[in-house]
């Protein structure tokens, strides 16, 4: 009981000193809870949406993909209209409606602006049925009637300022057609961002499926008293003979839809939780430092407790009870802040074009429980070592003159363990760098990263000695005695400096590693593009290239050639009898110029001859294929061709690694026209000296199709760079949390050091150190600690990054590029972070009353 009481009193007496630790716990817990609430809310939104859109029973073609994606020929799978009548006969059916829906569309306004979502949500076009009234209501105008009428969802209309009477052009595999807006329908549940347009049934069938009398799915409504499961059985019985249908209850349909979204959400969730984990890890250092300092400061007090009869266990427990209180306070606040973060993220997504409603805000009971458990457990774990040290304080400490707290020395045991771990880590990294296969190497790389990180954390205090001295020689000596004092202060407790620096090291190591990998990616891709790409222009987009766009491109002037490129589903059987389903690429012969590929045997151009093909060198080696051998290619939806291998391409590349090429002409012999897929990507070459005009003309020609990007090589490289840059920025943003916690750690260390050194500061002030000198001293100590962490982190991270590049060289990441600009910026930035972290501690030290400082006991 007494233990509880002293702990509680201590906790509240030192709440100022605990504040930053609490904030660290708060931030980490908030990030975890924020992630959970955010992803749960997203899931709720989709659940509601899917639940609202699903019919009691849905009948689909067996071949329909769960995610609603269109098959390779660009037309949705469909079933005959006659099925409607068949299903209607089943028992318990109230009504059956045939629905047409396609996601292989782009909708543009009269200014050729894409009405689709910018966040990756699909554009969906379909016919308006009664079933749609489950999830939507018409809020203005009327449902579309006839081939020139379209209805659009209210969110899209709002976003793009669409009005009744505006015209919308729908671009599908079957061509373009324009219709006037006659109605606007509003979702009754939250629609996270899909753009939806509706036509009447005949128009939808003709324009989206290219066929009359076919539907992509049937929505069956149950008569009252009939359950979905019963209805499904009844419908199945009626359709049993055919067996080519997928029949789902509303729940099954929603579940299937949810699965796809759920997987995507899980990726987001675990990625974000990973970053939260890093923040927790960094927070641990902060908490360890706090409790170590509190225990040191309280040595006399603890000695007294021991002298009057407290057991080691009691002292130990009293510290852990304080940690528990800290964990609870930090976590509770963190859970609250987490909900705030989730709402903030939702607003952010809203700004990016993804609509989420706070009505759907989902806080599962597991979220606060998990947050609280995590926060408390991590805090207790972090406080464990300092607590044990407290337990070891001898009763004699009460009698001894405490004086300045004993300096924490870095022991040799720690050094040996740290060096061994670092050694293992470095060995693993070297192993990874020299690995023969990327898959083997990645595990070794992971091991290398983990071991070298742990090793560095452990030998951090030992490194602090050397590194801080070096930094000081360069930086601080210029500041005379104040600099020297700062250096000595940073060095007086290497364990504390080490832990504080290590916290910063973790975040910065990841930043450095990723920036090295990212810029190596850009450099490698650029170098390969320069080497191998012969095409002047590259056209691609998130919808495969529809025939009308292909024609527009072919008509564009000043082009020597236009190359079509199609990915085909096919099963290949090599001469040794092995099958694979990796498909084949069909392109025009000019592709051999657009992408120059070295061959190990044969001429690449020959692969585009009649009934010829090429294979990659890895495949050739694995299956013992030589030029002149025959491979059976079973085109999906077509016939099986016997193609002669005319060339073997060198697989030591990043673009099209392992691709098998054949000509479009050859492919057309074996695949019926309605099964031939649209182009994945297209290339063009300009006439000599006409590049500028050709580029402008091509861009102009493709203007009606804003879903496709037309780029020349320069723009393409820039785009690549921008994309990687964006990705890196996102990751840096997530790492910012860990870095913020680390900076709090520096603030914490300094603030507690200032309290601990009250007497010294008083003495220095008494014998004539000015406030400004004092503040400068603390700032410089802070800068040194920050730079120490930055140096370690950047060094470690660049090592990881270089190793990863060496490993990924096997996958085409051939060029190592160290982004010195970024690295130096981070290093210099760290110095400023140090200055910033010292602001408040330095201010407080400067304000300290000299007399009180001297009189402190």
């Amino acid at each position, binding site marked *: 009981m007494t233990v509880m009481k002293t702990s509680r009193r201590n906790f509240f007496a030192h709440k100022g000193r605990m504040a930053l630790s609490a904030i660290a716990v708060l931030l980490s817990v908030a990030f975890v809870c924020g992630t959970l609430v955010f992803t749960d809310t997203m899931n709720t939104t989709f659940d509601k949406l899917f639940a609202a859109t699903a019919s009691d029973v849905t009948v689909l073609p067996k071949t329909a993909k769960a995610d609603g994606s269109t098959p390779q020929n660009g037309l949705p799978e469909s079933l005959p209209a006659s099925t409607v009548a068949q299903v209607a006969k089943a028992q318990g059916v109230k009504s059956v409606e045939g629905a047409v829906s396609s996601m292989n569309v782009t909708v543009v306004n009269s200014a050729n602006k894409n009405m689709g979502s910018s966040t990756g949500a699909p554009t969906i076009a379909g016919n308006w049925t009664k079933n749609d009234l489950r999830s939507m209501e018409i809020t203005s105008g009327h449902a579309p009637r006839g081939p020139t009428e379209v209805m659009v969802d209210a969110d899209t209309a709002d976003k793009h300022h669409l009005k009744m009477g505006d015209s919308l052009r729908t671009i599908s595999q079957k061509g373009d057609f324009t219709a006037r807006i006659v109605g606007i329908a509003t979702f009754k549940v939250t629609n996270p961002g899909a753009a939806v347009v509706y036509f009447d049934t005949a128009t939808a069938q003709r324009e989206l499926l290219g066929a009359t009398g076919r539907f992509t799915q049937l929505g069956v409504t149950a008569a009252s008293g009939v359950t979905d499961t019963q209805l499904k059985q009844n419908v199945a019985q009626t359709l049993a003979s055919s067996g080519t249908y997928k029949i789902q209850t509303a729940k099954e349909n929603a579940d299937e839809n949810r699965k796809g979204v759920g997987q995507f959400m899980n990726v987001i969730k675990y990625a974000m939780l990973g970053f939260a984990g890093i923040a927790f890890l960094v927070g641990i250092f902060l908490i360890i430092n706090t409790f170590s300092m509190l225990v040191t400061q309280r040595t006399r007090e603890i000695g007294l407790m021991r002298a009057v009869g407290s057991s080691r266990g009691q002292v130990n427990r009293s510290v852990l009870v304080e940690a528990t209180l800290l964990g609870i306070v930090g976590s509770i606040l963190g859970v609250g802040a987490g909900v705030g973060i989730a709402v903030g993220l939702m607003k952010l997504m809203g700004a990016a074009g993804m609509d989420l409603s706070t009505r759907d805000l989902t806080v599962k009971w597991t979220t606060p429980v998990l947050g609280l458990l995590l926060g408390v457990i991590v805090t207790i774990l972090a406080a464990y070592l300092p607590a044990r040290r407290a337990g070891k304080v001898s009763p004699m400490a009460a009698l001894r003159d405490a*004086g*300045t707290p004993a*300096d924490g020395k870095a022991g040799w045991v720690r050094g040996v363990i740290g060096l061994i771990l670092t050694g293992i880590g470095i060995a693993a990294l070297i192993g990874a760098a020299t690995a023969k296969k990327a898959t083997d190497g990645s595990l070794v790389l992971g091991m290398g990263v983990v071991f070298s990180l742990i090793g560095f954390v452990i030998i951090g205090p030992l490194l602090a000695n050397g590194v801080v001295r070096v930094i000081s020689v360069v930086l601080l000596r210029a500041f*005379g*005695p*104040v600099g*020297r*004092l700062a250096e*000595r*202060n940073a*060095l*007086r407790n290497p364990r504390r400096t080490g832990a504080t620096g290590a916290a910063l090291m973790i975040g910065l190591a990841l930043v450095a590693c990723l920036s090295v990998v990212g810029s190596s990616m850009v450099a490698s891709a650029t170098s390969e593009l320069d080497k191998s790409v012969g095409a002047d222009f590259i056209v691609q987009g998130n919808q495969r290239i529809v025939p009308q766009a292909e024609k527009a491109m072919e008509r564009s002037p000043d082009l020597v050639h236009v190359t079509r490129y199609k990915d085909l589903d096919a099963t290949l059987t090599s001469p040794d009898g092995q099958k694979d389903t990796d498909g084949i690429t069909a392109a025009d012969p000019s592709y051999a110029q657009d992408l120059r590929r070295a061959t190990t045997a044969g001429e690449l151009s020959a692969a585009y001859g009649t009934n010829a093909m090429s294979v990659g060198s890895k495949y050739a080696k694995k299956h013992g294929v030589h030029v002149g051998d025959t491979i059976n290619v079973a085109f999906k939806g077509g016939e099986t061709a016997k193609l002669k291998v005319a060339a073997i391409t060198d697989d030591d590349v990043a673009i099209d690694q392992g691709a098998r090429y054949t000509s479009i002409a050859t492919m057309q012999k074996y695949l019926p026209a309605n099964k031939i897929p649209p182009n994945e990507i297209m290339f063009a070459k300009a006439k000599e000296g006409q590049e500028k005009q050709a580029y402008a003309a091509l861009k102009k020609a493709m203007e009606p199709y804003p879903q496709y990007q037309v780029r020349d090589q320069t723009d393409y490289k820039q785009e690549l760079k921008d994309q990687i840059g964006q990705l890196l920025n996102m990751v840096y943003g997530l790492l910012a949390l860990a870095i913020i916690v680390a900076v709090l750690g520096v603030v914490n260390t300094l603030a507690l050091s200032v309290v601990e050194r009250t*007497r*010294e500061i008083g*003495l*220095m*002030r*008494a*014998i*004539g*150190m*000015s*406030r400004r*000198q004092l503040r400068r001293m603390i700032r410089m100590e802070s800068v040194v600690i920050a730079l120490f962490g930055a140096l370690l982190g950047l060094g470690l991270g660049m090592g990881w990054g270089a190793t990863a590049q060496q490993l990924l060289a096997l996958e085409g990441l051939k060029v190592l590029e160290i982004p010195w600009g970024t690295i130096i910026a981070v290093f210099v930035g760290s110095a400023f972070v140090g200055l910033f972290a010292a602001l408040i501690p330095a201010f407080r030290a400067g304000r300290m009353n*000299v*007399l009180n400082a*001297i009189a402190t006991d």
Partner: protein
Amino acid sequence: MTSAVTIPRHGGTGGRTAVAARARQVVKAYGAGETRVVALDHVDVDIARGQFTAIMGPSGSGKSTLMHCLAGLDTVTSGQIYLDETEITGLKDKRLTQLRRDRIGFIFQAYNLLPTLNALENITLPMDIAGRKPDKGWLAQVVETVGLSSRLKHRPNQLSGGQQQRVAVARALAARPEIIFGDEPTGNLDSRAGAEVLGFLRRSVDELGQTIVMVTHDPVAASYADRVLYLADGRIVDEMFKPTADAVLDRMKDFDARGRTS
């Protein structure tokens, strides 16, 4: 009211005033109204240059407060304090800090030294902070005087308590301050180490002409001084020249007895 202004304003010390520091009608009060506590009650005092002055008095008499005020560590409620001809009351923190740095030396009871600096670095710290080069010859003489030549590279935690206080004395002397203030400088030392330190202070007055003011409650320590000031209830109640330990002790017993009977 007893006044301690007994030293002639002009003496024979080469044109400089014979008074190193003086206090005029100094009042130091804490709080206000009913809870007002007066620590110094209209104190007038002159500190003679080149002399060793001890300030004595019971706990709460205001002796430490007087020293802190004279040394520019604490502000006064009213009255003036002069260091030589400079009035230090009313100076801004920045000027006051400079003044302490350049013209005053300190020896505290404990925690005199920075643990991160070695003995020599501690000794030269005030000059380092000021950006001044120490006078090599003088420094060597001071170090020699306090007997630390072989210990200069030691950190404070490698020195005994007596040695640490000697380093503090050396630091106070090294910058040649106009006046050194000691706050119970031997309070934490055993009698032998204490005698050693007091001996150095005495010698620095006799041989180097240093001015020293020391707060103490130890009659033996006070007996090293040229003059003892007695404080009680924030006022100077008595003084003694050429004190001996016994005389000081008797005088204090006397005060105690009076204090109890009054």
